[in-house]
């Protein structure tokens, strides 16, 4: 096992940002850490990169217990490298940025030059050797940061939202690099994302984080709402788009909910909706995810729906057309 975490807690003052009773991360794989903003993904990555010490608990790296405050932490750090969400390069040339970890590892001059050229080729930036690092775009900076990380010859690369601030072209390149470094160089990759589709596309395994805890599945379709009760005692959740859904809950007032995408049903508007909790929306996107279809419906707020392929085949859905979306009360989870 690459990492093993036991009773890990990270706390800032009185606020617990991470609380993981147990987690194991296998080696040699691409692992996606999924979760919304504030789920504790970055904190977990910094702990896994040995840059941040947990308040409580134990971290094992390849079965060795990590003592974050002791002098041997440098030996652990030299096996793992973190590419930050918005990486920053030193104010010098691209060449010298990639050379930095090689100099630390006392590589000779000729080897340094060869490795840097190979890495620049891998990230598709051969012509940028002498460019000033601070003059690069966000996507280029991200790619050089990956090259810089690879220069460490790490056993693990941790990437914090590697495609969060780059355009589609750079996103495709970065996803290709992630696959290549895992398959060709055998480096384990752990990356965070809040994009379910990207995690499915790139990761071999996924782990879900929500409010600092491991969740069984990612909470999707997270919205704020308000619980109202009618004269018969039936409760309704009114979302920000003013749509009103029947729900089963003891709660009152403002709530935060997650609508489970696998419990929603979608149909073309040719059929008349009989069920309650059904509203009309526009089908914006259809994507294939392993053994299911994901549909994105615009109901003045984007809602993801997961459809089994056999059901999807019977629906004849067309992109851009109006659909009915039914959100049964059991699809509402109160967070």
């Amino acid at each position, binding site marked *: 096992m690459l990492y093993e975490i036991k009773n890990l807690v990270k706390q800032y003052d009185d606020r617990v940002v991470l609380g993981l009773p147990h987690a194991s991360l296998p080696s040699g794989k691409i692992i996606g850490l999924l979760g919304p903003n504030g789920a504790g993904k970055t904190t977990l990555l910094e702990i896994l990169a040995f*840059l941040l010490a947990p308040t409580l608990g134990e971290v094992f790296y390849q079965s060795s217990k990590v003592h974050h405050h002791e002098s041997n932490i440098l030996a652990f750090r030299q096996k793992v*490298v*973190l590419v*930050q969400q918005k*990486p920053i390069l030193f*104010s010098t040339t691209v060449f010298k940025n990639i050379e*930095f970890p090689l100099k*630390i590892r006392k590589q000779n001059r000729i080897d340094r030059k060869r490795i840097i050229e190979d890495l620049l080729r891998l990230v598709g930036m051969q012509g940028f050797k002498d460019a000033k690092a601070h003059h690069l775009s966000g996507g280029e900076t991200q790619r050089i940061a990956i090259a810089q990380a690879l220069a460490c010859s790490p056993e693990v690369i941790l990437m914090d939202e590697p495609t969060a601030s780059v355009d589609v072209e750079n996103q495709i390149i970065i996803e290709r690099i992630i696959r290549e470094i895992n398959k060709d160089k055998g480096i384990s990759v752990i990356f965070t994302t809040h994009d379910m589709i990207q995690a499915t596309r790139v990761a071999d395994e996924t782990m879900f984080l929500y409010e600092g805890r491991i969740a069984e599945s990612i909470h999707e379709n997270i919205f704020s709402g308000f619980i109202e009760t009618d004269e018969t005692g039936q409760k309704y959740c009114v979302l920000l788009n003013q749509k009103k859904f029947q729900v089963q809950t003891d709660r009152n007032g403002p709530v935060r909910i997650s609508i489970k995408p696998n419990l929603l049903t979608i149909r073309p508007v040719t059929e008349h909706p009989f069920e309650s909790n059904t509203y009309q929306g526009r089908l914006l996107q259809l994507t294939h995810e392993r053994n299911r279809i994901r549909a994105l419906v615009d109901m003045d707020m984007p809602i993801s729906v997961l459809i089994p392929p056999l059901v999807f085949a019977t629906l004849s859905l067309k992109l851009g057309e109006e659909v009915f979306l039914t959100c049964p009360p059991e699809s509402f989870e109160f967070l």
Partner: protein
Amino acid sequence: MTFFLDSFQSAVLLILSLDRELLEIIGVSLNVSFASTCIASIMGIPLGLYIALNEFPLKRFVLTVLNTLLALPTVVIGLFVYSFISRRGLFGPLDLLYSQKAMVIGQVILIIPIITVFTVAAVSRIDDRYRKTALTLGAGALQTAWVIIREARFSIVAAVIMAFGRVIAEVGISMMLGGNAKGFTRTMTTAMALEYDKGEFVLSIALGIVLLLVSFTVNIFFNYLQGRSKI
């Protein structure tokens, strides 16, 4: 006005003639100021780096004390150091009083707070991602510190230049601890004070012109660095 113009003209001629006494005084001034700036930098930059990058009890208090020391009068430092190095003082047997070493000691005390406080300010402004990047790339504590100094280099060098400007222009410490001995501890500022007392303005004005030229050169360098830091 004529008196001033005549004195000014004579001073320029004195400079152009490379007067031996004038050069000697300039030499002592630059020598003492460079030495004290170097020693204070070696002590103040790591101290500033440590204060900026670490959390420890009384950190705020330490910063308040350093900020207070920025306004420390040179005569107070002169008196303080004198009490230690005079014949009756703790370090009296070392025979430091009225030497360039004594002036350097006093000037180091004067500018350590300047270099430290401005290094703290420079390093605090540096993005924490530089530190994290250096650490994750496998750098040790010293290599990480070097990365941070490198990124804050323009501001730190500006602090050092400012400190040099402070010591080359000070008169209290040089007078009290150096004693204004001709050829040994006479600096531009102490010589100017002496010449003024004697009513001899030519050398005084000549030294004033040189001092202004040194300040001007330092400022040009300072502006050049500030310009570079925006790149």
